């Protein structure tokens, strides 16, 4: 008798573990109804935006209130937020996917070997042939020189910050200045380059490739320093100590132990920095000028790069006669630029994965 009362007592206090549950197809059902509502609104002439907004609102409210009725208000809030999150996600992804799709769709037919091997000299301006050979070569030259300037300075600065200057005043000042540099708008880097070369060359309107490279290296430097610094910090002090304890001098420890351990991350960071500046336009507009043929001399004369080519060609796309061919050229150049930048990104990530120090057996 006693035990029976006890067990009844226990059951009394245990809240039920099951509650009202939404049917599994509830979101689908609500979606169908909402789309139908939207379609109806469209027929009544609300316009496409009104209809989509209405359907979305109907879906959010419908699902939330249904959940509230079946599962309670806490669950309803959860459902509401989850729906809003996914809405934000979709809203963000639609334009980004549209961008890639548009560029590929409009650029792909233009990317022929002829387009890649021709420049803009001669009859190209009259709508015959024409291509981006000079711009590709210009991009390669200007970006490479920028990398050659920025990478050694960046790596040595990071080495100074992590290995030598740890915590001293100069290191703090430099870290602060690197932060400042991160915030330099790209167009300001271009203004610096032109201001510098006005003074250096005495020419009121200097046009030369090396100026563009200097502007780009200014933009690369903080990225390179930052990523190398992070990577060097990740190298455990244990390894440095192990090396010192073997009687290895400090600089050899850095070159032979610290840098090889961090090399994957460094290559990734540097490649990403190159990819970023390869697509820069603003800093180059002012100093590179307009070129229609490849110019391999970085110290004299205008140079064309892909982004600058795209921007400068844009003005021609509305021309009554040559508009269409310029439009094609712009999209082709845009697609090729994206391919370059994305490949650099992929290479960076693959290197990061493949050359990370092996820990497996």
């Amino acid at each position: 008798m006693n035990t029976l009362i006890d067990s009844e007592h226990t059951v009394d206090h245990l809240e039920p573990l099951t509650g009202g549950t939404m049917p599994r197809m509830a979101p689908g059902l609500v979606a169908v109804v909402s789309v139908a509502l939207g379609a109806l609104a469209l027929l009544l002439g609300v316009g496409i935006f009104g209809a989509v907004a209405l359907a979305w609102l109907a879906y959010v409210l419908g699902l939330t209130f249904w959940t509230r009725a079946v599962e309670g208000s806490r669950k309803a809030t959860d459902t509401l937020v989850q729906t809003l999150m996914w809405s934000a996600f979709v809203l963000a992804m639609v334009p980004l996917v549209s961008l890639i799709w548009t560029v590929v769709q409009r650029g792909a037919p233009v990317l022929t070997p002829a387009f890649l091997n021709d420049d803009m000299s001669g009859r190209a301006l009259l709508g015959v042939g024409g291509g981006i050979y000079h711009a590709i070569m210009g991009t390669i030259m200007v970006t490479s020189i920028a990398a050659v300037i920025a990478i050694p300075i960046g790596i040595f600065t990071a080495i100074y910050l992590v290995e030598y200057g740890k915590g001293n005043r100069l290191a703090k000042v430099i870290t602060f200045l690197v932060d400042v540099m991160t915030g330099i708008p790209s167009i300001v880097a271009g203004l610096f380059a032109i201001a510098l070369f006005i003074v250096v060359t005495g020419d009121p309107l200097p046009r030369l490739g090396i100026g563009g490279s200097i502007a780009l290296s200014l933009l690369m430097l903080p990225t390179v320093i930052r990523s190398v610094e992070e990577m060097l910090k990740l190298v455990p002090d244990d390894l440095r100590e192990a090396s010192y304890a073997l009687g290895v001098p400090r600089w050899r420890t850095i070159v032979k132990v610290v840098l090889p351990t961090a090399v994957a991350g460094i290559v990734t960071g540097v490649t990403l920095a190159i990819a970023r500046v390869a697509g820069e336009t603003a800093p180059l507009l002012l100093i590179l000028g307009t070129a229609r043929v490849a110019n391999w001399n970085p110290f004299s004369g205008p140079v064309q790069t892909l982004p600058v080519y795209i921007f400068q060609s844009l003005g021609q796309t509305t021309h009554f006669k040559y508009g269409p061919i310029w439009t094609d050229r712009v999209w082709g150049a845009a697609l090729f630029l994206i391919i370059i930048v994305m490949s650099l990104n992929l290479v960076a990530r693959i290197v990061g994965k493949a050359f990370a120090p092996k820990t497996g057996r």
Partner: protein
Amino acid sequence: MAKSIDVSDLDIYYGDFLAVQGVNMHVRARSVTAFIGPSGCGKSTVLRSLNRMHEVIPGARVEGKVTVDGQSLYDSAIDPVAVRRQIGMVFQRPNPFPTMSIYENVLAGNRLNAKKMKKSEADDIVERSLKGANLWNEVKDRLAKPGMGLSGGQQQRLCIARAIAVEPQVLLMDEPCSALDPISTSAIEDLIHELKSDYTIVIVTHNMQQAARVSDETGFFNLKAAGQPGHLVEFNSTQKMFANPDNEATEAYISGRFG
């Protein structure tokens, strides 16, 4: 080739903070000397001052004298890098170089110092050092594999092989077994016993049984009081230290009444 070490009136500072005060001792060649004591009493600091490894920490400095067979380590003409080549060190956590294979790890001390050597000579050093560290039989078939792939105990023996590959005079060990399991620990202890015939060994340990098992002489470090610098309380043969110590504090520590 083993050397003896003399320490006299050694004070060690971190910036303005006096970490260890007034250490005097004589470490005999070809013997194992253990440092014991509670945490934070400066025994690792003293160990690191024996091959100038504490200088890696900014602001650390030393007053007093450390001599290895008559050669003062803190003379202005002495290069700390050269000191560390002659006085090797094994750390608390095994730290093989992750970018190198087992083979390259053993040779790291020679290679990193850009020492030229023939292939046969290098093979010789690797085999001798790995045999010396009791690791040869376990890894001889996979010398090209990464050193990080070994177990913790094997990694620690690899680090010992790496340290003895440069033929140091003295081997310092900073709690070499504290990150290891009991079986790996006993393998290392056996190894220390064998290495003693060729090297002077100084070992810091938290484990009193270990000190009793492996060492010939023991130094007991303690803090004078909380916030005060550490100092060497007693330095004696291990036999005497554990059976009948001179100092009351030592006896209290060894019998487990504090620390």
